[in-house]
């Protein structure tokens, strides 16, 4: 036990001695959270749009003004013919062209209906979708207002929406829990995988192996400092998300920390497994970074909803631990869900962690090749 304690102390010293890495380890999650918390969102702002107005009457002018005045849009170009559209799109700045048909107001007065065409540059389908629905909303609201002024009635179905848990549809609320998962997953897996392969690469592994330490002690000693580090990171992220981003926290803190520690352990043991099957830091890092980064971002439901994926991928997404952690964290933070509804996810994480530890212990070679 004493030798184990000594080893742990050595590991702590080795990590905290390297000031640059420490700054990166603590600073990075903070910068990332601040940057992404503010920058990653699905609401649009200041999108450049163009107008092709064949009518130029008071109605279209007022509507254009209304659209230009919204935060979402900025009218930057006025076109004169259809043929100009493709050139404007190819330059890539303007994302949508609003086309008013000729004698618009006239038709609206007499036929009671007129046409507006919304042409989007759909190379980015997501943006095209958002831009289109924003514009339609502005147009519809304008028409409703106009009708109300003229004294129309409000017969028929009146639709009221209520957005549960996240009334402003703020993407920050969704992305912050996601960022926690990504940061924990990547930092923890990366750190452990590197620190063990490093010993191998530098030739120190021999010394550790002939020492009275058991493999399990070596592994624990390697993992412990990073567990502490990660828990500190979780606390910092939580404080930031609460006070900077005002992300609601409905559930229990104790449960949140318990689940977070469980997830950190999953990530750490994944790092262990990587280190036990590789021999150089380079390979370990490439697996931990290049191999984990995109799958964790894409398949966890962090940005893209899992329900939208094709069925086979929905199945594949089950092996991504971050997916389960995300469900748990979003549940606790936004809905205030208790452990009862999260049992399945917790058990899955637990089993994954145990399996990963077993696997890496089996692969941990006590002899040199």
């Amino acid at each position: 036990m004493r030798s184990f304690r000594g080893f742990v102390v050595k590991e702590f010293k080795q990590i905290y001695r390297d000031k640059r890495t420490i700054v990166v380890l603590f600073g990075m999650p903070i910068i990332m959270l601040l940057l992404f918390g503010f920058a990653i969102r699905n609401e649009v702002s200041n999108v450049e749009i163009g107008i092709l107005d064949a009518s130029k009457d008071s109605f279209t002018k007022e509507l254009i003004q209304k659209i230009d005045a919204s935060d979402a849009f900025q009218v930057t170009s006025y076109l004169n013919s259809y043929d100009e559209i493709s050139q404007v799109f190819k330059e890539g700045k303007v994302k949508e062209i609003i086309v008013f048909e000729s004698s618009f107001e006239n038709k609206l007065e007499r036929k009671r209906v007129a046409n507006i065409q919304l042409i989007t540059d759909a190379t980015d389908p997501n943006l095209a979708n958002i831009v289109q629905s924003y514009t339609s909303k502005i147009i519809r609201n304008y028409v409703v207002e106009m009708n109300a002024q003229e004294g129309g009635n409000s017969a028929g179905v009146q639709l009221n929406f209520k957005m549960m848990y996240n009334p402003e549809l703020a993407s920050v609320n969704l992305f912050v829990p996601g960022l926690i998962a990504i940061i924990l997953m990547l930092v923890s897996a990366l750190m452990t995988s590197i620190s063990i392969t490093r010993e191998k690469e530098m030739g120190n592994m021999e010394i550790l192996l002939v020492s009275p330490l058991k493999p399990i002690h070596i592994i624990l000693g390697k993992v412990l400092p990073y567990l502490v580090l990660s828990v500190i990171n979780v606390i910092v992220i939580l404080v930031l998300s609460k006070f900077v981003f005002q992300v609601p926290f409905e559930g229990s803190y104790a449960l949140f920390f318990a689940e977070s520690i469980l997830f950190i352990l999953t990530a750490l043991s994944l790092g262990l497994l990587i280190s036990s099957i590789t021999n150089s830091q380079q390979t370990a890092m490439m697996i931990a970074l290049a191999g984990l980064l995109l799958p964790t971002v894409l398949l966890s439901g962090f940005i893209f909803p899992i329900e939208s994926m094709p069925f086979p991928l929905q199945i594949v997404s089950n092996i991504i631990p971050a997916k389960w952690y995300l469900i748990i964290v979003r549940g606790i933070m936004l809905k205030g869900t208790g452990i009862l509804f999260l049992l399945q996810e917790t058990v899955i994480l637990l089993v994954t962690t145990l399996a990963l530890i077993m696997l890496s212990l089996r692969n941990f070679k006590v002899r040199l090749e």
Partner: protein
Amino acid sequence: MRILRYLLKKEYLQIFRNKGMLPILFAMPVFQLLVLSFAATYELKQAEFAVVDFDRSILSHELVQKLQASDIFKLNAVYFSTEHALEEMEAGNIKMLLTIDAGFEKNIKSGKSAPIQITVDAVDGSIAGLIQSYSSSIIAEFNAEKLGKVKMSSAAVVLPKSVNIIPSNWYNPNLDYITFMVPGILVVLVSMIGIFLSGMNIVREYEMGTIEQLNVSPIKKWQFMVAKLVPFWTIGMFDLCIGLALARFGFNIPFLGSLVTILTIAGIYLIVIQVLGLLISTLTNTQQQAMFIAWFLMVIFILMGGLFTPIESMPLWAQNLTLANPVSYFIKIMRMVLLKGSGWQEVYKMVLVLVGMGALFLGIALNRFTKTSA
């Protein structure tokens, strides 16, 4: 020149000797491109919903059926109390709850307003937004049908004005995400190889102590750097070509622009990214540090590169930050050239910016990298 040739030979040997690395260099990017391109979509396939119907009339029943008739909404259950239904929402079993008040049918038939409530699980804001816009368009349709009948029977009321909105999506009429994602994901995969490997390769020499041997050898500074960069440049280009072939023949992505343009710009871009990796390696002492910094930059580049969430949806200051993001330029260029058929005329400015960045990185790196040990 002979020195360079030997150095290159050594580097290639060193790369291809590491058997653990080969699948990471060649198989992993292809595999990720194939699998992950399908994951990046916001399409709403299906949303389960529940109904609490206090009216229980023919019309309310018709409304529910109208929702169900769309491919998107699937009726999960009918509840008799709102509380019960909300519990189901908390457990994550339903995404939407439709509550119809008593008197719904009577109100519609007599031309009064008939309120209904739709409660959406908005934890995922983008999904909630989609549910909102789909359901409101279905209900608007329902409304128009029923009102038309009411109007006809109760004679002349002035019709409200209405504007017909006709959407049309150019270059990608079906709003197909794959077309959009594949070029972007390909860029990211190639960038990762460029920045991670070329950077680490030099720090590795430091860490292993072999840099001293190189320092006392007659190798020139530029020869050493070129020998470090060229192998991964060729590997990156090779991966890119495989990726493009997959995109063309596997994913059926239209190649509207010229392939030569893409490959030329890709060549330039890879050098820029590699020089950035080189710069990182001259600023760090261990592979671990180099890796963390490279990883940190890469995550920022990817998440703020307009790959997943549109740059236009960022606040203005963040949009300005992306001007310094090489990955976002290349993603943009790839999409413009491949999907819109843009040519040099439209993209040359961005290429110039990339070249400028590369020159800047190289300048700093050369300044930092000395052949005498510190």
